[in-house]
């Protein structure tokens, strides 16, 4: 055993020492050949990149993941929108643009195929902004260095009421669209706010993944998608685009080994990380809101699922064969489908265009899984109680329901409770995927903070600790609700 550990440690040391630390120099598009190049899944230049055989192409989910991959050395080159990473470079030492991409992409807002009226309204608004010079002012502010100095952003009160204009952003990064202290800012947010003003509707922004943003618009869960959406012919087949407001360049980013990374010692580093993660811009609010959201979805799904589980259990025990088969089909269906897939189906197919809030979709989805799991627990623990116990209760003069609740159930709970607790905990941890349908739970709160601070470690550690505490809390709640040892 000790030998194996030694071997692994020495291999790791060798691997970390063996790397030649030299800044990669790129001059033309062919220079990237032989390197590992990473970008974001679903972005406009992904097909071109992933079709190249001479590079090791990697795809990440978000811009902060991409940055982390570059910083941790998982990829040598990151290819992304120049404007976004320029904002990052100002905050983070150690990366630089190696080369600009050879083309720029016209960027616009993406609407559903049937929403031509909305597109025309937006186009009219944009033309007006270009004519009165507002557009130029916006670009001067956001697309240069100016916004970085502006510590406080002007808060725009929205007095409009009615159905909100639902925006799906896929890029939670300055200067495009970003969250500060619960409010969204950025050039694309400002433009869409102008559209909302024109429509007299409030603006509601939600964060999606790159791929699910398109689905959100297609299924009617969002009216418009933003986040540096390049206009490409494939996308034009399925969606409507507004007139482009700008053309963004792509760029190749690499680690800049010429800049010495500053080291302040581990304590200072942790302090800085906590400060960045929690204190600045009141980011702890994301954590608190996410915590409450995770807790709300978990507890409601557990309650609803426990009740549905009773129904499923009574179906399993039914005298009619077809009822039993129904429950068997349901359970094998649930057993055979990943939670994330069902969540997406429920959100984008079953509840699309219904106006049901994502929270409720998530609660229902997790309750469906939970019901299947607990119905088996109910069965196992109730079947473990011999029928003699029921007969003894009846013979003493208890009614049927008194016998069940006073004699059978307390014994079954003793058997089933550890299993039930395990089911609750796995549900709680399973809810970390609700970010896919734009719910800001703890995991997604961590993601949002990472997309502002570009620091992966501290938010992830925080999220880990919080899940740990939540698991402990759920365990304590169940212990509190469990029957006491003394029966009288």
């Amino acid at each position: 055993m000790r030998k194996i550990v030694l071997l692994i440690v020495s291999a790791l040391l060798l691997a970390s020492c063996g790397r030649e630390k030299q800044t990669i120099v790129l001059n033309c598009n062919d220079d990237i050949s032989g390197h590992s190049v990473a970008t974001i899944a679903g972005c406009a230049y992904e097909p071109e990149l992933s079709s190249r055989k001479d590079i090791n192409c990697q795809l990440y989910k978000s811009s902060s993941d991409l940055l982390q991959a570059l910083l941790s050395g998982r990829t040598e080159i990151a290819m992304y929108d120049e404007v976004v990473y320029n904002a990052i470079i100002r905050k983070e030492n150690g990366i630089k643009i190696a080369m600009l991409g050879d083309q720029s992409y016209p960027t616009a807002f993406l609407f559903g195929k049937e929403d031509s009226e909305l597109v025309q309204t937006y186009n009219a608004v944009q033309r007006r902004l270009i004519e009165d010079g507002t557009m130029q002012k916006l670009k001067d502010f956001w697309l240069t260095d100016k916004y970085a100095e502006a510590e406080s952003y002007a808060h725009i009160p929205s007095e409009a009421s009615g159905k909100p204009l639902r925006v799906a952003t896929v890029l939670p990064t300055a200067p495009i669209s970003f969250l500060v202290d619960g409010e969204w800012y950025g050039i694309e947010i400002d433009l869409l706010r102008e559209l909302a003003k024109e429509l007299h509707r409030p603006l509601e922004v939600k964060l999606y993944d790159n791929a699910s943003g398109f689905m959100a618009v297609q299924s009617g869960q969002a009216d418009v998608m933003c986040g540096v959406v390049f206009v490409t012919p494939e996308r034009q087949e399925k969606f409507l685009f507004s007139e482009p407001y700008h053309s963004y360049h792509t760029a190749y980013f690499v680690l800049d080994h010429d800049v010495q990374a500053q080291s302040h010692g581990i304590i200072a580093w942790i302090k800085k990380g906590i400060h960045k993660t929690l204190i600045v811009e009141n980011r702890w609010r994301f954590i608190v809101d996410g915590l409450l959201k995770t807790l709300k979805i978990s507890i409601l799904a557990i309650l609803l699922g426990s009740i549905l589980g009773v129904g499923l259990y009574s179906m399993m025990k039914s005298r009619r064969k077809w009822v039993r088969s129904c429950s068997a089909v349901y359970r094998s269906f649930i057993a055979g489908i990943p939670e994330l897939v069902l969540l997406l189906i429920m959100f984008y197919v079953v509840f699309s265009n219904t106006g049901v809030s994502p929270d409720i979709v998530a609660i229902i989805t997790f309750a469906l899984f939970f019901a299947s799991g607990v119905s088996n627990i109910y069965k196992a623990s109730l079947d473990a109680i011999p029928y003699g116990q029921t007969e003894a209760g009846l013979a003493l003069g208890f009614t049927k329901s008194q016998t069940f609740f006073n004699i059978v159930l307390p014994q079954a709970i003793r058997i089933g409770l550890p299993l039930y607790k395990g089911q609750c905990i796995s549900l709680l941890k399973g809810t970390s995927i609700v970010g896919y349908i734009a719910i800001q739970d703890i995991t997604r709160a961590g993601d949002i903070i990472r997309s502002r601070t570009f620091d992966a470690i501290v938010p992830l550690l925080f999220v880990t600790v919080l899940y740990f505490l939540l698991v402990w809390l759920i365990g304590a709640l169940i212990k509190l609700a469990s029957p006491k040892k003394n029966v009288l």
Partner: protein
Amino acid sequence: MITVSHLSKIYHNPDGSNVQVLKDVNCEIRPGEVISIIGPSGTGKSTLLRALNLLDPPTGGSILFNGENILEKNYPVHKMRQKMGMVFQSFNLFDHMTVLENVIYAPCKIHKESTEKAREQGLALLRKVGMAEKADVYPSNLSGGQKQRVAIARCLAMKPEVILFDEPTSALDPTMVGEVLSVIRQLAKEGMTMLIVTHEMKFARDVSTRIFYMQDGIIYEDGTPQQIFESPVHSATKAFVQRIRKEVFQIEGKDFDYLDMESRIRQFCVKYNIADKCDKALALTDLMLKDIMAEYIPITERITFSELSMDTFVDFMVEGLETSPLKADHPSMDKLRALCSEIIEEPTSRGFRIKLRIG
């Protein structure tokens, strides 16, 4: 107290076939009676008991309990069960409760008795069955006999008017049967009305005021222990109480397989530990079938052994015969008298039977 008339119970098997366990049970149970229900396995003894408190509701007939028809729709069955206690073969103690909790749980929940008062009464009951020492022990730490005594105390705690015992000692080691039976004996002395399904014949004879002999889903014979055990009316009752084992042979003609018969008689004697009587039984068979009664074939021969009286008989039955086939002047009669200790000649409804006791 309980009047049962024309009670029947049919079980429907999942394969569609029906089994009639109780055919037509009629009986009257009066206060203070201790009734043992005996009979071969599978004749509906336990079913009758379980039908009385409706754990297995009967399919026909009527049961009157204190003058009320308990089979009526909407009859408060649980109220009736509070007065009709039951002790099970497999104890069925509540495993998640201590011994004392088992005893006082129902009075506390149903009679709403205060915990202190119930505790006091529960301990008194446990003392009565000799289990007060184990009041705070969980059932899993008790022996079978101890469990059954607690189960009896639990039953008594509801102050029932009658107690049904469903084979209370069948699941016990022989060493533990005694402690349970003495508790039931004690209850009988105190005048508790009881119905006991049991296989303990000596106990049934000593403790009961009445015995029901059940067979084929009916009460075959109903009488005092003396009647049932000493002079039963029905041969089936007699066969059961004397624990008579038998082997029957139909001798149809001259070509009968005597060798097979011989080996079966030998097996029978070995099985019931009467090997010393084997040679005499074979000699008698040979003498009767081939000599004395040869002309009366077809004959039905039986060899019987009572485990109670230890008597062994060989008997020969000729159907349709009214007078004895034995002639005093038959040349082999002396031989016959030498082989057996008693010759009984009895006419029956079907024919004439010669019974030979092997001494």
